[in-house]
């Protein structure tokens, strides 16, 4: 029936909103469309999405977009020029490097840190949480105790100590942040798993002879993904701030890499007279982490309408 209608009006959205989807494909697309409609009704969330898309585009096309070399400056003619100087939109730093170009190239490092932390920490949390929630018993008790222990630690201080031991560098900073950020994901995945652990579809899969491994991997994990994605997105801002803090203390990316936190640190010496050297990278951090926060808030409201507006 709904297919017939869709054939009559090829550009109608009714096919997507149909209450009786005729295929799995249609149901999935329909759900995505409903979520998108809820998400795009939220203007702030759209702004957040715009900021993040812009960040990704800037990072991809950094070589094309940056007007100057980010690591080699013009020491003779272009030291500490104020913003708005011809050719140097956001001014230059003490080594005559164009701040805008450094910010553009720094977006790659920011994205690198955020994506890598998410790739390391989210699967770890997902596996620990789903296994713990599905297995129950002593496995659950032990895994959750470990999670709680890590959850009770101060994140920044632990990351500091870890990087201090591993040696400064952006890879070690990523590792340290990942080590401190997986526990909330495990808690969320476990809570989700518990809600449908005893539901009928799991029993049905079990009756068909699926192994626990297959159940967790194919049936439990996919259902935990949406709340996990929301949480990871909301955490991105915190990850960026921690990475910037490590960079500021000289423990993250090393010079001459244009990491935003390290740029603030190097601009600190001139803050009274040449404020822009430190101010510009901080503004970039603020905008990007604001974007991630807005996006995460919007995603949460769209995926979980129960909590909308809270």
């Amino acid at each position: 029936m709904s297919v017939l209608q869709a054939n009559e009006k090829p550009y109608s959205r009714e096919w997507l909103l149909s209450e009786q989807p005729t295929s799995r494909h249609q149901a999935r697309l329909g759900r995505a469309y409903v979520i998108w409609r809820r998400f795009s009704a939220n203007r702030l969330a759209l702004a957040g999405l715009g900021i993040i898309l812009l960040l990704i585009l800037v990072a991809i096309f950094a070589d094309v977009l940056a007007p100057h070399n980010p690591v080699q400056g013009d020491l003779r003619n272009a030291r500490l020029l104020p913003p708005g100087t011809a050719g140097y939109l956001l001014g230059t730093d003490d080594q005559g490097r164009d701040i805008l170009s450094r910010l553009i190239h720094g977006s790659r490092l920011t994205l690198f840190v955020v994506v890598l932390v998410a790739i390391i920490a989210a699967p770890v949390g997902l596996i620990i949480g789903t296994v713990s929630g599905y297995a129950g018993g002593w496995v659950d008790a032990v895994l959750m105790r470990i999670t709680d222990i890590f959850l009770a630690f101060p994140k920044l201080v632990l990351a500091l100590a870890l990087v201090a031991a591993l040696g400064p560098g952006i890879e070690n900073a990523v590792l340290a942040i990942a080590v401190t950020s997986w526990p909330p994901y495990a808690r969320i995945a476990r809570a989700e798993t518990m809600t449908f652990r005893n539901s009928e579809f799991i029993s049905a899969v079990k009756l068909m002879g699926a192994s626990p491994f297959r159940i967790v991997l194919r049936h439990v994990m996919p259902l935990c993904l949406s709340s996990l994605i929301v949480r990871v997105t909301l955490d991105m801002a915190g990850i960026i701030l921690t990475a910037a803090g490590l960079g500021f203390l000289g423990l993250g990316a090393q010079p001459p890499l244009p990491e935003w936190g390290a740029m603030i640190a190097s601009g600190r010496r001139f803050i009274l007279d040449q404020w822009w050297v430190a101010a510009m990278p901080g503004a970039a951090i603020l905008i990007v982490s604001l974007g991630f926060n807005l996006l995460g808030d919007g995603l949460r409201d769209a995926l979980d309408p129960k909590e909308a507006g809270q």
Partner: protein
Amino acid sequence: MTLTDTTAVTRRSRRRASSFGMAVVRFVVTVVTTFLGLLAVTFFIGRVVPIDPALAIVGDRAPSHVVERVREELGLNLPLYQQFWIYIKQAMTGDFGISVLTTNPVMTDIARVFPATIELATIGTIIGALIGVPLGVLAAVKRGSIADQIVRVIGLIGYSVPIFWLGLLALVLFYAKLGWVAYPGRIDIVYEYTFTPQTGFFLFDAIWQGQWDVAWDLFRHIILPGGLLGYFSLAYISRMTRSFMLNELQQEYIVAARAKGLSEARIIWFHALRNAAVPLVTVIALSYAGLLEGSVLTETIFSWPGLGLYITNSLQNADMNAVLGGTIVIGAVFVAINILSDLLYRTLDPRTRSR
């Protein structure tokens, strides 16, 4: 009939007693394993991660017999579990080794600098709670209004801003340009030798001794870093207050209070806020723990002589004993506040007690 009733009662009371016992056991296990976990992580960071701690001390040009002797002194030739056991015993007695930078025992250094951090975090939490709670209530009551949006934006920026950057800008504006606050540091050099604090909490000491000029100077030093940390916790507290208040305002007792003819102000500030206050206590305690940690970067900016500055200074000088000692102390206080706030929640909320 009566017989079965009484057995049921005794059985129930026995079960309650045993569930109380279980709760105590679970609590003790939680505390012990958490602290052991903290020590295990710092042990791992200090002893396992570096390629060779002995080389880190003597340098890689030292002759091999010197390296061997240092390894022996550090107990590095023992099996790992024995090293860990010694580590735990030392940590229990507050022995975190000697700081390379100051040549004092790390614990002595920490005892000297920690009050400054506590003072700063306390001021920050007071500011954050005093402003954050009313803002959150306002946002919940006027949900969807301009006021709600403004509170939301203030909170979001607080979540998104790098605190060290905001601190630098605030210094430029309020100290360099406007001259409203004192320069970075805790106390003016004029008072540094005339003022003798007793407890280490300078502001409290100065007021206690009636030295108002010193108190004013201390206030001019603490207001900027304290206000900054306050903004940080305000963002969290106002957001949580709003969500708790929205939850309370939907309850039926609010309708009943309105039907009784109580004034709206009384309903909001007395009835609803009192119920929202229970989870709020936990939130404020957690934000206090967060500020202890957040002070690491803030203290670096404001040259505030607390634990955060101590840790970052030691980091710059590769003084791992001091870094790990500071990490353990901050971690232990953090864990303790977590556990205390959990206990506090249980005592304040009768609903969690009966179960």
